[in-house]
């Protein structure tokens, strides 16, 4: 194996309130596939954005061919031969394949105009060099399949003479046939000396494709190893291996009747044949990777994207939940993950946000009772220990944790019986986190039925009475609190025993 082309040493990067990466070491050699692994939020995306010039590191050194470099923009990284293919492909659907490949550096004729025939010819050659012969360079990219679009992206990267190709979860949206072809292309590139950085959640792919693997955890470097020296369980342990801290004050709550029941509920594309039961006083954890269909399931239960088929029962009665207001009437509350977009009205005052879902409750004859509104807001400030200057503070000025508390108290003000929380503690500080966990335990003890979606395994393990694991829109495992371990959950979340991998393995 040759020397490293690109080397990162001691890389750290912080965003306001979050240390995304600290002291990361990473390198890419010519003619290798280097897999980058880690749980959601481990810092993989931040790291590749540093390599591709989107972010600048706060600390640390990057060297390319032995010389220190600092990219001020993705353009600079591209000029130095580092190309990145993101999960969302960045193509122009209304332009042709050839135009997309040569976007920004089209061959010109002597009059300075685009030389169309050369461009088409070059595009054809590039695709042929990737062993792609079935793609018409004059067709609109918008008409292509996802797999073909990805091939166009790869060709585009190579048109910049990329020596390092970074691929962020390239197989996430591909069919099995496309996965196979992608693997072929990646191996072809490797044989030509390109260094490939490959991010994937599917461990099987790492063993099929990668030469070395680097694992990140909570923004820290865990290890870099040759793939031949690791195995499935070893990788999972490296990814999740951290101690369960005492953050989770889960107390036993007596379980009551089944309040919510789903039977074979389906909503394409990411809720498939889901059945579950939720009891009063129970905290039901839902684990899974990003894209496993957890939030989508919550959106079905809350009526944002109503179920297409299957049965939903609340208190044993069949119900149809066609909209969030219908869900609200049934006593269902949903605290979304994306506070900024879905949770709060930022320019509004704290009190106005708390009462937003209870306007009917606090008004008479169409007019709001400002007194009850203020009482409601003060109560939630006390109950949640919200740090705010008062009930008139504009919510966008609160910290993330306090915003989350307001989002939660908005829904508790509706006095729900079923509470769905999507990533209740993502991105908030440890203190606020503990308080939200304490609140959840208290609510469960009062008989609230809670569904908690979380990507943090310690949180799932610490807070849940029962855990469902989702993958590809289905519930693939159900584990009791007593039997669950990080390893068993992670294995259920990630192991991809489906036919696609079996085919690709050949």
């Amino acid at each position, binding site marked *: 194996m040759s020397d490293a082309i690109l080397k990162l040493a001691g890389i750290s990067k912080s965003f306001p309130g979050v240390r995304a990466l600290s002291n990361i070491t990473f390198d890419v050699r010519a003619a290798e596939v280097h897999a980058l692994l880690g749980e959601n939020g481990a810092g993989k995306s931040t790291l590749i954005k540093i390599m591709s010039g989107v972010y600048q590191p706060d600390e640390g050194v990057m060297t390319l061919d032995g010389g220190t470099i600092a990219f001020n923009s993705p353009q600079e990284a591209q000029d130095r031969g580092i190309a990145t293919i993101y999960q969302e492909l960045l193509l122009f659907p209304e332009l042709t394949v050839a135009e997309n490949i040569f976007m920004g550096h089209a061959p010109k004729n002597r009059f300075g105009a685009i030389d169309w025939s050369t461009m088409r010819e070059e595009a054809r050659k590039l695709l042929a060099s990737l062993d792609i012969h079935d793609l018409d360079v004059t067709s609109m990219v918008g008409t292509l399949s996802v797999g073909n679009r990805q091939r166009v992206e790869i060709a585009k990267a190579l048109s910049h003479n990329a020596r390092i190709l970074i691929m962020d979860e390239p197989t996430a949206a591909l069919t099995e046939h496309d996965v196979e072809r992608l693997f072929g292309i990646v191996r072809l590139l490797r044989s030509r000396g390109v260094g490939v950085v490959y991010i994937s959640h599917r461990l099987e792919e790492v063993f099929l494709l990668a030469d070395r693997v680097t694992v990140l955890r909570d923004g820290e470097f865990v290890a870099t190893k040759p793939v031949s020296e690791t195995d499935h369980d070893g990788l999972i342990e490296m990814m999740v291996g951290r101690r369960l801290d005492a953050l989770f004050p889960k107390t036993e709550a007596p379980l009551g009747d089944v309040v919510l029941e789903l039977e074979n509920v389906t909503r394409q594309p990411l809720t498939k044949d889901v059945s579950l039961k939720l009891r009063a006083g129970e905290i039901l954890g839902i684990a899974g990777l990003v894209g496993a269909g957890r939030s989508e399931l919550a959106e079905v239960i809350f009526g944002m994207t109503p179920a297409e088929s299957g049965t939903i029962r609340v208190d044993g009665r069949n119900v149809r939940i066609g909209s969030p207001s219908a869900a609200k009437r049934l006593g269902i509350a949903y605290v979304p993950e994306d506070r900024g977009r879905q949770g709060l009205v930022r320019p509004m005052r704290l009190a106005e946000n708390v009462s937003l879902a209870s306007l009917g409750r606090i008004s008479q004859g169409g007019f709001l009772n400002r007194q009850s509104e203020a009482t409601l807001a003060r109560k939630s400030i006390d109950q949640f220990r919200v740090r705010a200057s008062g009930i008139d503070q504009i919510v966008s*000025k609160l910290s993330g944790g306090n915003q989350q508390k307001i989002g939660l108290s908005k829904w508790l003000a509706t006095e729900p019986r079923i509470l769905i929380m999507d990533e209740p503690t993502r991105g908030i500080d440890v203190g606020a986190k503990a308080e939200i966990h304490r609140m959840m335990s208290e609510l469960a003890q009062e008989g609230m039925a809670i569904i908690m979606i979380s990507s943090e395994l310690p949180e799932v393990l610490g807070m849940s009475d029962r855990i469902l694991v989702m993958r590809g829109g289905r519930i693939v495992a159900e584990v009791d609190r007593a039997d669950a371990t990080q390893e068993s959950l992670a294995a259920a979340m990630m192991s991809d025993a489906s036919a696609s991998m079996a085919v690709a393995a050949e």
Partner: protein
Amino acid sequence: MAAPEATTALAPTPRRRWVPRIALSQELVLFLAIVALFVVVGAINPRFVAERNLQSIFLGNAYIAVAAIGMSMVIISGNIDISVGSLIGVLATVSGTLAVAGVPIVLSWVIPVLLSIAFTTTMGAMVAYLRIPSIVVSLGFLSILKGGLIVVTGGAWINALPEGFHLAQMKPFGIPMPIYFMVILTIAAALWMRLSATGRSIYAVGGNAEAARLSGISRERTVVKVFAIHGFFVGIAALLYATQLAIIQSTVPPNLELTIITASVVGGVSILGGTGTVVGSTLAAVLLAAIGSSLIFINVSPYWLRAVQGVLILVTVLADMWRRMRQARGRGR
């Protein structure tokens, strides 16, 4: 991210935040600007503050302030209506035509208001349920109304209006009717926006439609309601416009809709929706009218009025952006 976040208390002490917020409110700034304008221009040319000129400033522009109330609500909800100018023209013509045709005067006042509500409610329904952007819907209405008006009236003016039709010329207790309308409707609308559940929904839908929807607030119903209420104010504005002069022209002042939108924006209503008050827009309407009049009194070509309005819009929008940026930066994440 699982990485612990620095625990920072961002909450400032209430007292310190309270004072500058009052000091910076758009309404107060506008009020002071109006006072300053009258003092300064009045000192240069005392005729500016003579009763006759004050009357012409307030009476001639009260209908703009009234229309700006509805417009502000529409913009706060995250929409816009650029057809108001044409609609006012059509409604004024309808009102005058009815009165000349011998319909009871009260009906010639009420029917245009109802018609206005019908028109804007239709617009609102198209915006809400067909999901067509309001600027497109109202652009369509603008063309239809403008074209229709010219075809129907043939550009003729309406005169020989019956006795008692001229609502805007009445002066109960010595105060001209348009002042009553402007003041009472502004206060009523301000209280309603602040105290009613629907008013709150309008702010919520404009501030974050998705969060409002998830809170069980129907965007569709809120948008239809806000357009319907807007129609009421447009109807009243048309009435004041129709009844202020002896004749009704078949045309309205050019760019009337832009003047009304300017009043809303300069009044502090964010063009992005979610914030602003109707008190601000009324004060801005008065300020704009006073500036227009003052140009004459300090011997500046009135053609500068447009430029001054433009500068005011840009200054207000820049101030709004600056405020938002500060807000975003002050965020705890």
